[in-house]
């Protein structure tokens, strides 16, 4: 029977190629659109190395300070001081690991000892826990250790690309390298990091103690650091925030003029991405509301289209449904036929939608994957866009269209089964 239904459905599609094409393209477009939206969300939020643990990470991007007990409402905002980060975040006991990094170290000139002309690469200063918070793939060597950081040893981790460009090979751990005219030892070589890894991205990493960090004052609160926290589990987030709050109060008790406040940080990954400015909290409610409006709009328009078309199509076939009833089709028979038909149509639309999604993933690469932050980096977005076409999401999109198509076909079909058969047979 199902085979029969499919056969007829196929024949129906062929009978009116333009109309079928429209329905199918409509379905495909809706699916493609959903995929594009999800992809652009995925690329920023889905975990992949080295940011494998995005779901259990917390971020403190900026720090704010203001005068204690003062009528002056002004605040000073920017990265935090190293000492402050150590006493207020590094001291946390609930998380698995806490890493302090430089907020924006200038890029570095890198050369082989004895070489005159240096190449310019992105640089990041970190502590040893950075290698625990993030999941780098080491091709050679290993990261620098706590002892290295404490002693301020000039060790460096470089990416494959830096190693190849500088030495012509990637097996270079233990070799000497010149960074900003200072000699370092290569501690390890990691796989290139995509500029999409907003937090972990760089091309060379070195102990945070090897440079004098510009400190901004406000009794050590402001400076040039940022903090990444890896929780043992997502559910520890509130506990970590609580503990951080205790440490903050303790720090503020020790200052005379200034006090630190967090503007609702530490952030989850999603909030972190939207925290652009140091002096204001992102309005997550409005961001979410806007995204939802766009999403709803992009779904509702094809939805009206699809259901309108499916509906007209069914109404044209009322007479056929009547005849089927006359020859013994029950209500259930009719509804299941309608379901199989819309299934076929949706599947075809889904297949085409998948192709569209592939095309869109490439064509819209710039929009989906790049932003101003990344564009300033010297590295590249080394992520294959297609890798984000998640089968699960595709299935959801397909299901959504199936639901739409089926519902729009169901309603007229249901009406037929409630009307006297004669009326349906002779309806036009």
């Amino acid at each position, binding site marked *: 029977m199902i085979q029969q239904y499919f056969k007829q459905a196929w024949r129906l599609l062929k009978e009116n190629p333009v109309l079928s094409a429209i329905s199918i393209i409509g379905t495909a477009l809706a699916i493609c659109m959903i995929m594009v939206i999800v992809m652009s969300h995925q690329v920023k939020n889905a975990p992949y190395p080295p940011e494998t643990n995005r779901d259990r990470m917390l971020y403190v991007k900026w720090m704010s300070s203001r005068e204690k007990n003062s009528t002056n409402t002004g605040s000073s905002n920017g990265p935090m001081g190293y000492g402050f980060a150590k006493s207020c975040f590094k001291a946390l006991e609930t998380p698995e690991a806490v890493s302090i990094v430089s907020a924006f170290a200038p890029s570095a000139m890198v050369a082989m000892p004895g070489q005159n002309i240096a190449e310019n690469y992105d640089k990041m200063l970190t502590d040893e826990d950075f290698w625990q918070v993030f999941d780098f793939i080491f091709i050679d060597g290993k990261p620098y250790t706590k002892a290295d950081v404490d002693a301020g040893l000039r060790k460096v981790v470089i990416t494959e690309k830096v190693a190849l460009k500088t030495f012509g090979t990637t097996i270079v751990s233990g070799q000497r390298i010149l960074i900003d005219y200072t000699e370092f030892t290569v501690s390890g070589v990691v796989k290139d990091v995509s500029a999409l890894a907003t937090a972990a991205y760089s091309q060379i990493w070195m102990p945070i103690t090897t440079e004098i960090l510009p400190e901004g004052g406000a009794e050590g609160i402001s400076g040039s650091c940022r903090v990444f926290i890896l929780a043992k589990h997502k559910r520890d987030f509130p506990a970590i925030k609580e503990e951080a709050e205790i440490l903050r109060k303790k720090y503020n008790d020790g200052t005379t003029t200034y006090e630190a406040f967090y503007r609702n940080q530490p952030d989850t990954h999603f909030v972190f991405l939207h925290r652009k400015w140091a002096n204001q909290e992102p309005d997550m409610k409005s961001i979410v509301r806007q995204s939802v409006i766009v999403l709803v709009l992009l779904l509702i328009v094809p939805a009206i289209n699809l259901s309108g078309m499916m509906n007209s199509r069914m109404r044209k076939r009322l007479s056929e449904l009547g005849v089927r009833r006359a020859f*013994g*089709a*029950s209500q259930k028979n009719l509804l299941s036929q309608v379901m199989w038909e819309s299934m076929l149509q949706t599947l075809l639309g889904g297949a085409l939608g998948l192709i569209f999604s592939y095309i869109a993933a490439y064509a819209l690469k710039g929009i989906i994957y790049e932003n101003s932050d990344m564009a300033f980096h010297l590295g590249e977005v080394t992520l294959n866009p297609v890798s984000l076409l998640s089968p699960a999401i595709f299935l959801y999109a397909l299901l959504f269209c199936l639901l739409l198509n089926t519902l729009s076909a169901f309603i007229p079909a249901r009406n037929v089964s409630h009307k006297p058969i004669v009326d349906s*047979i002779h309806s036009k």
Partner: protein
Amino acid sequence: METMILLDKVHKIYRTEEIETVALENVNLEVRKGEFLAVMGPSGCGKSTLLNVMGLLDAPTSGKVIIDGKETAEMKDRELARFRNENLGFVFQSFHLINSLNVLDNVELPLLYRKTGARERRRLAEEVLTRVGLSHRMRHFPTQLSGGQCQRVAIARAVIGNPSIILADEPTGNLDSKMGAEVMDLLHKLNCEDGRTIVMVTHDESKAKETSRIIRFLDGRQIS
């Protein structure tokens, strides 16, 4: 002889917001097994309504419809569907074939709702199509056939499920005389050879005269 269809005090009234139309008024009718009954009357006299009520395509406003000894008023959707499927075959004036199915698939339709195996369905469809003389057109689509051929396909569809009753609503109305004669021949064969009960609505006196009994309708009432 056994009674096949029994209408007992059947009324059918159509109501719209403004008017009330009496399509059938107190119809008492008995159709016996193996009979070929012609229902005649001018258009709008209620003869098609009568056929629809007999075929369970439309419910009467009041009165009883008893077919093959079964009271039909209390049947649920699924029972009705099954009953129609097994006992009734329909032939319509404008054929009502499904354009998106080929001749074979159209004819197989009633068996589809009976869970007959695909091979068996095919065999039966081929057999009955051969009987109506269309074995060479089995893979065609309805739009590729002439009116007479379409009606013969429709007849094949009506008999494939082996129903004891065939209800034909102006089966020759859209056909020229030669094709009309062919269709009448077929109906006669079904009546005489298979012993099926046939009720045919027509306004063509000559076609009606070929049947075993004629009843006439005027304004919803049987007048003879």
